[in-house]
């Protein structure tokens, strides 16, 4: 039914046109993205030139790499005949481009060219994912649920076994964090599982979902293992995020709003419970309630972040002109504070609208996917990026307690960037799956 409806819709483009309007749209969107990123980059360079008349290769390498990446992506997608949503591609690269400029601005690329590797890897991963999973091939991932589950558990176990404790959580040496990769793996597993049992989850009584006994208990037990591991990792934010994502996927699988309501209540309850039990989380709740209790201790970071936002005001002080170095861990968890200072509230609003537009496109693509698996998988991936964005931004602005989650595409951290790109690539592939089906 869904396939037929989309066929009638997609039959409209002129037959015989090799590259449908989507491709020209992609060129335009990527061009707009490049212009915005170059404008941001110029601002950073101007501040640098204001201080010293030196423009070395290191100053230009990130932009050169980024522009080259955009060109390669455009050519490669054109060559492979990408027919998916151009907005998903441009959105991912717009966010990553702003992230690249902000990382340059806070000095992340000072150590050398190897710092640029995550950007190259991420873009490569994105392209590879779109090409490999595109044209409807993403449906084969339905069978990879169990390997993905085991891989996710294995990744977390490896980190627990070999990692070192840093800022309340565990990382591998070099603060490389492979648990980021566990996010799409767990989403893949949940999508495969829910797809198989989706009929069982659609039963409702008086609007409330009635969980099926066997699949429900199975899912609960299977989900408990990664949650337990994240607790061991000291990464309560991750378990909160993944539980929220699971709720969205249950809704996408069953289309029962009851799951969304009950699930959200359960997640909030879990968050409160976790906040009560864990000393680490207790501190974060206390800081959230009143950072002025201990302004130079526990409240320091978030108050410094809010001071940076205040210094930015409505229009910001210009990229490169602020003093984001005053915020602790500004390059990763608190990059949003640096953005708030330099692009202002107006710029932040535009950035969040970009995130919102990206995620809306992700869900639209998921809703129109050819297979139920694609729908559930796409909804989960989008939910993962959306929830991470909200939790990070709300934490920095003190709207919610800090969760220690990174801002997708923008925060420093190779694993985070690569993972975000892979997830965006999967979404682009899902959007293409629909189109490919439609124009067959």
């Amino acid at each position: 039914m869904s396939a037929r409806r989309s066929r009638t819709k997609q039959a409209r483009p002129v037959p015989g046109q090799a590259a449908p309007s989507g491709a020209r749209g992609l060129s335009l969107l990527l061009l707009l993205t490049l212009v915005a990123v170059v404008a941001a980059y110029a601002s950073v360079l101007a501040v640098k030139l204001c201080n010293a008349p030196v423009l070395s290769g290191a100053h230009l390498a990130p932009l050169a790499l980024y522009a080259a990446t955009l060109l390669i992506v455009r050519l490669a997608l054109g060559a492979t005949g990408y027919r998916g949503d151009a907005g998903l591609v441009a959105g991912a690269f717009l966010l990553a481009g702003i992230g690249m400029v902000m990382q340059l601005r806070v000095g992340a690329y000072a150590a050398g060219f190897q710092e640029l590797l995550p950007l190259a890897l991420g873009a490569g991963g994105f392209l590879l994912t779109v090409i490999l999973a595109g044209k409807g091939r993403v449906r084969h991932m339905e069978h990879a649920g169990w390997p993905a589950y085991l891989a996710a558990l294995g990744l977390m176990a490896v980190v627990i076994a070999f990692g070192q404790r840093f800022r309340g959580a565990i990382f591998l040496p070099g603060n490389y964090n492979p648990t980021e990769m566990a996010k799409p793996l767990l989403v893949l597993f949940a999508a495969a599982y829910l797809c198989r049992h989706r009929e069982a989850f659609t039963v409702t009584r008086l609007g409330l979902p009635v969980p099926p006994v066997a699949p429900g208990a199975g899912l609960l037990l299977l989900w408990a293992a990664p949650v337990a591991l994240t607790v061991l990792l000291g990464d309560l934010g991750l378990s909160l995020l993944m539980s929220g994502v699971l709720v969205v996927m249950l809704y996408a699988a069953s289309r029962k709003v009851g799951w969304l309501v009950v699930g959200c209540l359960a997640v909030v309850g879990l968050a409160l419970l976790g906040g009560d039990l864990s000393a680490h989380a207790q501190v974060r709740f206390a800081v959230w309630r009143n950072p002025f209790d201990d302004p130079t201790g526990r409240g320091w970071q978030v108050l410094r972040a809010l001071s940076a936002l205040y210094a930015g005001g409505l229009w910001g002080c210009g990229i490169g002109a602020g003093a984001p170095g005053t915020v602790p861990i500004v390059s990763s968890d608190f990059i949003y504070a640096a953005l708030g200072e330099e692009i202002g509230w107006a710029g932040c609003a535009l950035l969040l609208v970009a995130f919102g537009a990206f995620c809306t496109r992700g869900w639209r693509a998921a809703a129109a996917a050819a297979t139920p698996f694609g729908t559930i998988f796409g909804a989960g991936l989008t939910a993962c990026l959306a929830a991470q964005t909200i939790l990070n931004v709300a934490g920095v602005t003190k709207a919610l307690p800090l969760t220690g989650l990174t801002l997708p595409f923008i925060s420093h951290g190779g694993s985070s960037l690569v993972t975000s790109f892979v997830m965006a690539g999967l979404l682009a592939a899902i959007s293409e799956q629909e189109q490919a089906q439609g124009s067959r």
Partner: protein
Amino acid sequence: MSLLESIMVELNGAHGPAVFAGLRQAFLICLALAVAGLLLAPRPGRKQLWLLATGLWLALLAVLVHQAAWQLAGFRRPEFVRFMRFHDPRPDTLLKQVRRGAITDWRGTVLARSDPVDIGRRIYPLGSAACHAVGYFDPRYGMAGVEQAADATLCGYSFASLDDLDRFGRNLLDHRAAGGSDVALTLDAELQVEAYGLMAGKRGAVVVLRPSDGAILCLASAPGFDPANPAEAMLDTVNAPLLNRAVQGLYPPGSTFKILMAGLAAERRLAPQFHCPAEGFVPAPGCRPIRDSEFYSALRTGRAWAGYGRIGLQQGFIHSSNVYFSQLGEALGATAFDELVVRSRINTCLTYCSGAATSLASAPGHLPQVGSHDRLLLAQLSIGQGPMLLTPLHVASLTAAVASDGMLRQPRLRVDSPAVELGRVMTPEAAATVRDLMRDAVRHGTGRVANVPGLTVCGKTGTAEAPGGGEHAWFTCFAPARRPELVVTVLVERGGYGAQAAAPIACALLEEAVELGLLGSDIKEQERAE
């Protein structure tokens, strides 16, 4: 010179700021275009999961609103501003904070203003003279007094008018220090300085009210403190200089309470005669007798004193006879007394400066309900002793009620706050009777010291016994007798006799008020009356 060097010179030159502003705007415009592209580009797919997208957009909106509350309106949070003052290394953050408005007296004399350079610092031209009424604004120690109550207006975010909104909006766009409005108080700076000077070396309070509308012309408390440096005063636990004794200090009113008792008697058209011997009055068997102060001073000097004999209300009032008034209280009864307490609002606070977030109010007085069986309590309360406590502001307000035909008005410190009538304490006829009694007390009685030539002062002394030391000296008065224009209430902690310690201060203030033109001298009227 290479290209890069010339760019550097250009950027650091006169055009630099414009270039950076241009780059900033260019980026925001380019970003807006790119985001618009993302929003408007053809969107394949379906809307079936619209609920999720709607939820996300709402969450993003909520975060942005919350962010704006800090990023754009963070100056509304005093704790946040304090944090930034002490811990934010950005040099220009201060300039983005609020330039508080000034606090002035009714003539426009500045009582508090912001330093033009360091806009977070406050300057108090009167020093400690008006410290309690005006309060302080300190980045470390917070706010007090009018600085606290009128904070919304001073910061310009009370949004009382469209002008406020307009200014707030422009401050947001310019990202400059938001400018607040000025606040005018009913205080008179010169009278305030004079009153504070008269209280030098003493502990106590002075309140000057205009009875016709409750305006506070002077609200002094001693000892004072330096409002620019309240920290020092916080450490002084002996004198407690931060305590505003005029509104927060609770004292037994002593004989000043006889004003209300006389009013109660006059209202009931009672002027009984009582026998007032030196031995005093025993309200109930086994009680210590209530005696007059004359008895004790005679005892100290070794004179013989026979008592006042059989006297009426007028003699009892002008001599402030405890023996007379304790018997009067018994004659009036507990029910009438309790009703008087309710009418005088003794157990409630008087709000004298209302603000958006906090209001300034006097401490509620303390007076227990009198049971009809407790004759000792009634006798003690009738002379302003026993378990009864009042603030100087309350005593002044009750005196002002007598001066304005029995109507109790809410005291007011801000010029823009309306005059509010709280209720009648006594009938106009009773108030007229009490005015005559108070005039007699100043002409012939305990308040003779205050009989300023050229002014028809009406007053009542008070010498209140208090546990833990000497008596508190009270004097509360108004002038002129026919058309009262000012009420002056003076309390000197542990000052001894009201007539000796407090009345001269009230006198000096009345004379100062005449000089300042706040009080018309009425020699003719006095001549006509006497």
